[in-house]
């Protein structure tokens, strides 16, 4: 288990604004994603844990060992930390063959065991054909597997992955995910995965930390976070398209309903505990939770809003409709095919989908 409390301050520079990192995290065996925009401090967090960057304050604990403690001036060197690190560009030594790369990582082991271990990893990561070649002579997938094998060869107690899927095409990405899932079960160590890809978090992570401007703004299982973002900023980071300012006009705990006014329309949602009548809130709805139906001129039903279709954006599995009032709806392709001749539209807000922040 890794437990870290890391603070680091960077004063403003002529070419960059001031930045401060202040992060607390805890991860058990399994994948924990550090999710956030670039520049949020995700990689810096990994660098502090690996020992490449010294925090100003805090404490980093791996299992029972103190890697860093500002108060007692403990700061282990990267060499002593035994954290596997997979770099963004893999950082395989270009002047060595893949086998030599693995041997370099195994050099602290006794000579006989070293070769056995390297052979074992070559076998396990399907690198036999490429082991005699240098990184620039092998495929992207082989590089990727070799860098992960190299990080794991010393049996680290923690695996740090810095955007391993960045710049990969879809098949390689799928291959990487399969490999990481396999590693998660075989090596029972905490894996910290830095990413700015939400799909990746859902694909791999049991837990995720959302990092913004050097702070953890929300943490928990990905599904839970998507269901209930803690703030507008988190909702924006998660790519939730529909965020509107709204006002609570009625609250009825008895019937478990509330009424919201937004864009001069009234919507009915579930009861929102902790809010007061007249509160100005953010209404947050995911595009795929909304429905769009034909407006046949009749009076709209409750929670339906007449809107003008402005733009249609095609996606592989779905279609995204952008309506007036900044409303975005994502429909399955087939459903859109049935309705694409609609002239006028109604957007339907199911009451269970209306979340307030």
């Amino acid at each position: 288990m890794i437990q870290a409390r890391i603070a680091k301050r960077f004063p403003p520079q002529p070419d960059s604004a001031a930045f401060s990192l202040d992060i607390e995290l805890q991860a058990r065996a399994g994948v924990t994603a550090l999710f956030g925009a670039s520049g949020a401090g995700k990689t810096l967090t990994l660098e502090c844990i690996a020992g490449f960057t010294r925090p100003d304050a805090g404490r980093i604990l791996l299992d029972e060992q103190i890697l860093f403690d500002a108060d007692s001036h403990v700061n282990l060197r990267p060499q002593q930390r035994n954290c596997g690190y997979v770099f963004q560009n893999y950082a395989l030594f270009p002047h060595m063959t893949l086998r030599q790369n693995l041997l370099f990582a195994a050099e602290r082991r006794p000579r006989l065991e070293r070769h056995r271990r390297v052979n074992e990893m070559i076998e396990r990561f399907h690198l036999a054909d490429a082991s005699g070649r240098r990184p620039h002579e092998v495929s992207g997938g082989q590089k990727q597997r070799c860098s992960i094998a190299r990080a794991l060869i010393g049996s680290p107690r923690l695996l740090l992955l810095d955007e391993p899927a960045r710049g990969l095409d879809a098949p390689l990405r799928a291959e990487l995910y399969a490999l990481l899932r396999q590693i998660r079960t075989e090596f029972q160590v905490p894996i910290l995965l830095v990413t700015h890809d939400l799909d990746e978090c859902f694909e791999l992570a049991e837990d995720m930390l959302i990092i913004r401007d050097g702070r953890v703004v929300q943490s928990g299982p990905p599904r839970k976070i998507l269901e209930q973002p803690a703030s507008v900023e988190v909702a924006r980071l998660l790519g939730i398209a529909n965020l509107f300012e709204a006002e609570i006009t009625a609250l009825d705990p008895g019937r478990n309903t509330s009424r919201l006014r937004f864009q001069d329309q009234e919507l009915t949602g579930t009861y929102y505990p902790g809010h007061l009548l007249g509160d100005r809130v953010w209404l947050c709805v995911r595009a795929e939770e909304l429905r769009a139906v034909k407006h046949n001129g009749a009076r709209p039903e409750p929670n339906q809003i007449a809107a003008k279709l402005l733009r249609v954006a095609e996606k592989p599995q779905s279609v995204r409709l952008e309506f007036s009032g900044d409303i975005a709806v994502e429909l399955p392709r087939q459903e859109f095919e049935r309705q694409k001749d609609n002239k006028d539209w109604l957007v339907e807000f199911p009451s269970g989908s209306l979340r307030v922040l």
Partner: protein
Amino acid sequence: MAVNWFPLWLSLRVAALATLVSLALGLWIAYVLANRKFRGKELLDAVVTLPLVLPPTVLGYYLLVALGRTSPLGHLYEYLFGAPLVFTWQAAVVASTFHAIPLLVKSARAAFETVDRSYEKAARNLGASDWRVFWRVTLPLSRRAVIAASVLAFARALGDFGATLMIAGDIPGRTQTASIAIYDAVESGNTLVARVLVLVLSAVAIAIVYAANRLQQRQVIG
């Protein structure tokens, strides 16, 4: 009149030794400059660069003061080896080393700094000591630039005149290097000797610069 080849051999030997000494010292200084943060780092860089911009006679004068028979270092050398350093061929090595080292330090520092830091980080992360990171990762990845720089350092060591003359003197058959021999030959009207040495040195210089350029070009491609 036969040409005396001794000055040429002496020059080559002195330059080769000076290059080796500059490599040993220069790579270390370059590594420190490229990797460590400390007060006075740029001052150290400036001091190391000084021989590149100082007139060689000024450098020679400093060396004479620092290593002469009355100086502490000169005493130490005499105590250790039983004879003074100045006006020996070893002194010529010292002069050439100082003449050649700035080039080596400058190029090696630049080469070390262009090595992608993630390779060094990866090596340290995999448990390699700083020493091993340097020998197994940093140096191999900048080897072409370092070899090219040593070739140029060799050429500069070969061409030193002023500093060598100041502390090694002009003793024919003992400390008279090729460039000094050329000066001597012209002074005493031995144009043939001067011409032969000039041509040979020019040929060596062209070969060296050509080789260094080839090495640096390949560095860019591969």
